[in-house]
C-alpha cells in the first residue's frame, strides 16, 4: 500500500517557475519534510495504539513499531512516497501466530511460524490461550509470564519489521480481545499532504519573491 504525496502540479504551474527551480524547491521541502513526517506517523501510530488499549495491543508492541517508521518514508528526486508495506505485511504478521502450540507429529511452534499443521483443535488451543493470556494454571501447568514470553517471541520473529500495525489499521474483531480498526493510513496521508503542500508552497514563494526582486 503506497501513497504518493502529490498533486502539486497546479501550484507549480500557477507560479510559472522554471523546472530547475521547482526541482530545487521540491528537494529542500522534502529534506525538511522527512523529520516532520516521521513525527506525524509516530504520533498517529501511538494514537491508534492508545485507541486499541494495552490489553489488546501490548505496550511492548509500540516501541519497535515506532523504530520501523523510518523505513516507510521514501523520497526520490521528484517523488515522495509513504509505503506502509515496509512496516510489515499480513504474511509477516502471520509469522507471529501460534507460539508454543503443539505440532502434529511432535514438537511445538517456535516463531516464526511457518504453517506447520497443529496437533490440537481450535477449541482446545483457544482454551489454552485464554490461560496464557490471563497467566493461570491449567492441567498442572502454570502459565504465569507466558503471555509476555509470547510477545517477546513475536517481536523477535518480526525483527526490524512491525506487522502489528495491521492490527491497528484493519482491527481484529474475530476474537477477544477485540481491536477496532483505526483510520491510520487515512490520517497520515491527510496530515502529511497538508504539511508537504505548505512546505513546498513556502519554498516556491521564496523563489518567486527572489525572482521578482530581480
Amino acid at each position, binding site marked *: 500500500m503506497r501513497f504518493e504525496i502529490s498533486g502539486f502540479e497546479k501550484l507549480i504551474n500557477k507560479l510559472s517557475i522554471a523546472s530547475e527551480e521547482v526541482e530545487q524547491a521540491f528537494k529542500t521541502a522534502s529534506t525538511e519534510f522527512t523529520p516532520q513526517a516521521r513525527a506525524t506517523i509516530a504520533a498517529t501510530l501511538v494514537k491508534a495504539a492508545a485507541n486499541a488499549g494495552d490489553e489488546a495491543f501490548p505496550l511492548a508492541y509500540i516501541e519497535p513499531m515506532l523504530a520501523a517508521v523510518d523505513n516507510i518514508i521514501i523520497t526520490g528526486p521528484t517523488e515522495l512516497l509513504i509505503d506502509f508495506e515496509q512496516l510489515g505485511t*499480513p504474511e509477516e504478521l502471520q509469522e507471529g501466530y501460534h507460539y508454543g502450540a503443539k505440532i502434529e507429529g511432535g514438537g511445538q511452534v517456535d516463531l516464526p511460524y511457518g504453517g506447520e499443521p497443529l496437533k490440537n483443535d*481450535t477449541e482446545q488451543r483457544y482454551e489454552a490461550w485464554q490461560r496464557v493470556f490471563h497467566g493461570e494454571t491449567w492441567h498442572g501447568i502454570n502459565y504465569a509470564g507466558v503471555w509476555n514470553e509470547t510477545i517477546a517471541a513475536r517481536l523477535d520473529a518480526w525483527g526490524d519489521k512491525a506487522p502489528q500495525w495491521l492490527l491497528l489499521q484493519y482491527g481484529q474483531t474475530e476474537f477477544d480481545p477485540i481491536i477496532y480498526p483505526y483510520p491510520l493510513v487515512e490520517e497520515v496521508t491527510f496530515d502529511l499532504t497538508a504539511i508537504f503542500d505548505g512546505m513546498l508552497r513556502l519554498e516556491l514563494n521564496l523563489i518567486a519573491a527572489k525572482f521578482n526582486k530581480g
Partner: protein
Amino acid sequence: MARKQYELRAFRNALNDYLGGLGWTELEFREGFKSEKTIQVPSVAIHFLPSNKEELQIGGRGSEDLNRRLIQIDCYMETEDRAEAITDDCMDFIDLEAVLIKDPSDNTLGTLICKDTSSIYSETLPPLLTDPKLKRWRGVVRATLESHYYAP
C-alpha cells in the same frame, strides 16, 4: 435514526444488490462491530469508522450538507481467491456506484458517493485459525466517501 445509520443501511442494500448481480449469493451481511452474531463464511461486514478529525467534516454549503465518510468492508471467505475476488468487486462498486440515502419512508435524502478513486484500497489477511471448519480469509476494503444531503 441517525444519518449515519441511514447511510449504512443504504450502502448495505446497494452493495448486496450489486454483488448479487455478479453472482455472489448466500452472503450474510453484518452492520457495525457490535453485532452479537458469530462471523459466518461467506459474509460481508460493513463498518463506518469513527473519526474525530474536524477536517473530515466539511460544513454546510448553503442549506445543503456534505460529510466525509470512511468505510471499511470486511469480506470473510472460504479461500484466498474468493476473498480477493470479492474485494475487487467491492472496490468496483465503491468506484462506480452512487448510493441513494433514504429514510424509512423511502424518501431520498441524499447520495453517498466516492469521488476520490485513489482512496479505495484493499488487503487480504490470512486466517487467524488453521482449523478447516473455521478457516476464513479476510478481504478488507477501505475507502473515503462523501455523503451529500440535499437542501430540504
